[in-house]
């Protein structure tokens, strides 16, 4: 979706902030991160759906929010969407009904972090592209979640690497299945993306699914 999250190339944000990173973070950052990570243990959504929920914010709200506020807002909406909490519970902070049993304790949470969530999957089809092939990215503007940023649509690049099959975020984010596809790293000339202000010879790499690409 063409949301405020698709920031690549935007002007106006000024210098990169906090480069020294030399002051302590508020404790609620940790709490927000940990709540978000551990709630995934219910298995009601996936990482693509989490990203989709953050992108669904109104563009003005996306930019107004701090990083972890986006996470918390998205988490609340995912919990509502999947029936883990009600509007009233969120409004009042008072749980209704009998207490549930959390899916993971401390050891279970450590196990989640250790295992992670690999996205590599077998794909029955042979890869359509080989390393060195020229490819053209689609100029598509889907209403839903996608991982092809606006700045790289309708551009020509060269396949640098094939990563095997990976879960397709475009469908997984909407609970429409994993639909794994071949994933490639595609190299673009910076000048083909940004014009002559870019340095000649500099390049930009993106990881792109096969359905984002056309043979050139």
């Amino acid at each position, binding site marked *: 979706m063409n949301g405020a999250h698709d920031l690549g190339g935007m002007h106006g944000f000024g210098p990169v902030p906090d480069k020294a990173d030399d002051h302590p973070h508020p404790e609620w950052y940790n709490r927000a991160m940990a709540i978000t990570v551990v709630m995934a243990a219910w298995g009601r959504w996936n990482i693509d759906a989490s990203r989709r929920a953050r992108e669904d914010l109104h563009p003005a709200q996306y930019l107004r929010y701090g990083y972890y506020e986006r996470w*918390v807002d998205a988490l609340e909406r995912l919990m509502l969407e999947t029936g883990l909490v009600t509007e009233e519970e969120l409004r009042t902070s008072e749980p209704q009904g009998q207490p549930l049993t959390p899916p993971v304790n401390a050891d279970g949470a*450590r196990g989640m972090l250790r295992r992670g969530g690999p996205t590599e999957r077998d794909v029955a089809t042979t890869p359509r592209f080989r390393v060195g092939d020229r490819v053209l990215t689609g100029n598509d503007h889907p209403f839903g979640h996608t991982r092809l940023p606006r700045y790289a649509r309708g551009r020509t690049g060269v396949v640098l690497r094939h990563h095997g099959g990976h879960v397709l975020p475009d469908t997984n984010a909407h609970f429409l299945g994993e639909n794994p596809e071949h994933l490639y790293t595609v190299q673009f000339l910076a000048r083909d993306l940004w014009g002559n202000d870019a340095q000649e010879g500099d390049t*930009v790499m993106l990881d792109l699914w096969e359905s984002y690409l056309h043979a050139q």
Partner: protein
Amino acid sequence: MGDDHHHHDHSHVPPEPALRVQALESLLTRKGLVDPGALEAIIETYSNEVGPRNGARVVAHSWVDPDYRQWLLDDATAAIAHLGYQGRQGEHMVALENTDQVHNLVVCTLCSCYPWTVLGIPPTWYKSEAYRARAVREPRAVLEEFGVHLDDNTEVRLWDSTAEIRYLVIPQRPAGTEGWSEEALADLVTRDSMVGAGVARRPDDVGGAA
């Protein structure tokens, strides 16, 4: 938070984030959706166990062991797991080698994808709108802000982490570190240098020879 506040109507100003998170944590633990011990385990892990020290050990090992370096470049996931680092946001790793000819820099323009297993939780600057917007369009200007001055002949390779592949930059080993122990070398490897937004410290930066 006001009684008339409605969480999901964004025409209202949201509550102060610390209070919002506190209220949410309280609700989730009392409802039995979250075990408080699980939260502590996660915070503890990323505060004390999983952070840039992991990546620094990987880099230092690659500096002293050419076979390991080659393995890291060929199959970073396996080579990094060999040192004990694997899991969430490090499931599929690729290592990128910085040289005099090529400088790699990593960004995630769409969100904040970052190799947690070797670098921990991303710093604020990596998640900032400014970095996400600018690194991909003007990496050299961004690098200058970080104090990294590149020769025009050095090619910048900018990696936008659009899938679940996570990138670890291997900075160049500083001159004057021949014979250093892996542990002393790891002290030279900064977090920023493993994103490409910095270079490794020089011996002078850490008080000379080790």
